[in-house]
């Protein structure tokens, strides 16, 4: 029963602190169930047992009972204090990252997550970490409030402009874990997600040296299709012709685009490259210049892949 409930309510615990959070969650859940059943059974029971039998039926004139009222003041208070201290304790133990934790710089901006690794490399949308090692994320936003949340790890912290916030985790199982933005930030809020990719220490080092293995060996078009989602392009650009915050990519290669200043350009390789690296220079008529720049966050191979993908969208 306990396991079934745990699986109903909680994703698999995948960090060292998650189990502790879950234990308290389950304690509170059982308290909830117990007290709810108490309230429901007694209330409905009284409705049945003391159903009115006659119009002038006499009722007991019980104004109060010090013993009862003390009981249901003190008992809940004790239970609440237990829950408070348990939650406080777990929270304080997790408040400071362990010494020597690996530091990742996290940048949030509408509507993509960017991660800076200790070796200086940068990746969009994917946070590669080694399993069983503490990771401290130091975060800031380039615009509005966002929030970094990994449900599987039970960690969450708001990400603020012009100020660093932080949290930390230590993953206990290899796998992919979603990071959904959890502070409302506008149109792309529900699509602003990234992934923590927990891998072995070996695979992590290989990633640092050779780049994302999921990208290696993929033909450019296929890589571009995957980047379309992972780099956040899909939030604003459709591939089926429908208008979003940005122009659809369907059939644009070789088309003519008119800019807000009236100039016309053919959508060729250079156009696409500039749009990604210096988007403010290429604002299409009928759209706002809100696309973030990917300068410094996108590798040459990824640019080539996106261009190939766009070309394929006839």
């Amino acid at each position, binding site marked *: 029963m306990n396991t079934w409930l745990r699986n109903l309510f909680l994703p698999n615990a995948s960090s060292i602190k998650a189990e502790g959070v879950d234990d308290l969650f389950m304690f509170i859940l059982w308290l909830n169930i117990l007290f709810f059943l108490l309230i429901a059974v007694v209330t409905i029971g009284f409705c049945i047992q003391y159903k009115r039998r006659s119009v002038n039926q006499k009722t007991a004139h019980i104004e109060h009972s010090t013993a009862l009222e003390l009981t249901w003041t003190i008992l809940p208070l004790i239970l609440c204090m237990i829950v408070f201290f348990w939650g406080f304790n777990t929270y304080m133990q997790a408040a400071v990252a362990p010494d020597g934790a690996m530091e990742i710089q996290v940048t949030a901006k509408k509507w993509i997550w960017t991660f800076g690794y200790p070796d200086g490399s940068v990746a969009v949308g994917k946070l590669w970490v080694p399993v069983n090692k503490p990771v401290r994320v130091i975060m800031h936003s380039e615009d509005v409030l966002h929030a970094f949340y990994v449900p599987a790890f039970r960690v969450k912290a708001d990400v603020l402009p012009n100020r660093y916030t932080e949290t930390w985790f230590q993953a206990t199982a290899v796998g992919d874990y979603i990071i959904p933005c959890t502070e409302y930030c506008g149109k*792309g809020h529900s699509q602003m997600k990234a992934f923590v990719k927990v891998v072995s220490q070996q695979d992590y080092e290989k990633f640092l040296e050779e780049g994302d293995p999921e990208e290696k060996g993929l033909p450019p078009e296929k890589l571009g299709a995957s980047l379309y989602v992972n780099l956040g392009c899909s939030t604003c650009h459709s591939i089926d012709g429908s208008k979003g915050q940005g122009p659809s990519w369907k059939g644009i290669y070789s088309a003519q685009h008119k800019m807000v200043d009236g100039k016309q350009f053919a959508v060729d390789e250079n156009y696409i490259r500039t749009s990604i690296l210096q988007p403010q220079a290429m604002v299409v008529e009928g759209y706002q210049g809100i696309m973030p720049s990917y300068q410094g966050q996108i590798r040459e191979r990824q640019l080539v892949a996106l261009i190939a993908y766009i070309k394929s969208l006839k």
Partner: protein
Amino acid sequence: MADVIASPAVHTAEHGHHADYLTDPAHKGIWSWMTTVDHKRLGVMYLWAVLGAFFVGGIFALLVRLELMHPGEDFMNAEQYNQAFTLHGAIMVFMFIIPSVPAALGNFIMPLMLGAKDVAFPRLNLASFWIYVLGSVMAITSILVGGVDTGWTFYTPYSTTTGGSVTMMTLSVFVLGFSSIFTGINFIATVHKLRAPGMGWFQLPLFVWGIYATAIIQVLATPVLGITMVLLVMERAFNIGIFDAQIGGDPVLFQHFFWFYSHPAVYIMILPGMAIISEIIPTFSRRTIFGYRLIALSSVAIALIGFLVWGHHMFTSGESALAASIFSFLTFLVAIPSGIKVFNWMATMYKASISLDTPMLYAVSFLLLFGIGGLTGIFLGALSVDIHLHDTYFVVAHFHYVMMGGTVIAFLGGIHYWWSKMFGRMYNETVGRIACGIVFVGFNMTFLTQFFMGSQGMPRRYYTYLDQFQPLHQFSTFGSWVLGAGLLIAAVNLFSSLRGPKNAPSNPWGGTTLEWQTQSPPITHNFVGQPSIEHNPYDYRHFKIPTDAV
């Protein structure tokens, strides 16, 4: 001074001989209603207004749930969806639930319960109403003119930088706040000064205690919201920068200001609901209430401690661990008085004589649904667990259980309870009970699954979502239709009763409080002569149940 605790027979004879407040020939026509200082007429106008707001807010809710049937776009794009959930929240909080019980039922019933002719400041009461109307018109205008997509919480810097009619909407909230403040001032003065002879503080009906405690919060907390809205407008209009991080301001400061009001605001929402339950349960149990003093004092305790817990909305916002710990501790303290009330109400039903008429069915529903709502608050007060649950659907489920499963259910119970007093007609009891059942089922279908959606990691304010959540979202959407149908049936049942003749008995339920000692509907001056009371409310030992009671 005439003792007006006359038998019901006298009132039946008086029926039709005294014009009631609805048809008083001295106050006829639209203009007399628009300029009325009669608390009963104002209560009725407020009732239609808040029910109208509930309807509009409800439509937005149905639209939001409909869009969430499938991930991705069903019929709204992300921007339209963001506006829909914002307007659902803003309309429901500011135009419906905060005024609802105090302005509609509090206005109508409280002076009657006190044996008074009206509230302390009847003209201020009229002003409250028209300020509410002005604020509501401004809010509707802002929806039509540009829309608002900030969420009802207006967090900066999104709210200071996004387009749309944010300025007009926040100004309308500023205006609506004054309606609430004036009502609070009025009620405090009324309870202090206009009680009937013999009615000391501990002879007050518990509905009055609840409304009084609410009024304290309204007066102390709402000005903070007003100033916060003004600061937001100044930030948008003049870039003064107090919330702008780029020039040294702090966006989190907005959250402190906002929640300093908005947490006490949720007690403005629930205390009147609890106040209604404190009336319904003893009446339909025909038994004295258990623990009168603790129930009365717990209302004041909740009002006061409620000012100290706002930071529990901000555990992940960047507040310090020390602040978070203090707020968590105080949050658990404020839970205790609510628990005491629930147990005292249950104890009132022991060795009682219970009749499950519609108002009592709503009261029983309240015990179950507010029970869940209050209990799930414990998850959110616990620091380590809240980190996981904050800003997920778990929070959405929690607050709908307390606000809708609590306040709205109690409001519906109160409307049914006092309907015949207000309008002289009785609704159909069978239909009323069926509607209550449908509402109960529909409500749980809509919101129960949202608890585990949230703890599984489904964030709130999400337009689209992962496939794994679709079955739960669909079930919730079906639930919203059942809930809507139940509410519609309840509404039609109530409104169609207004076509009939005004022949409801003055005390159909056998209530012991003063409002039942005058005719239904009451005469304009409430009582013939100043009533006085000789015993405590809810004392059924020597109370004679009227022969025409239900």
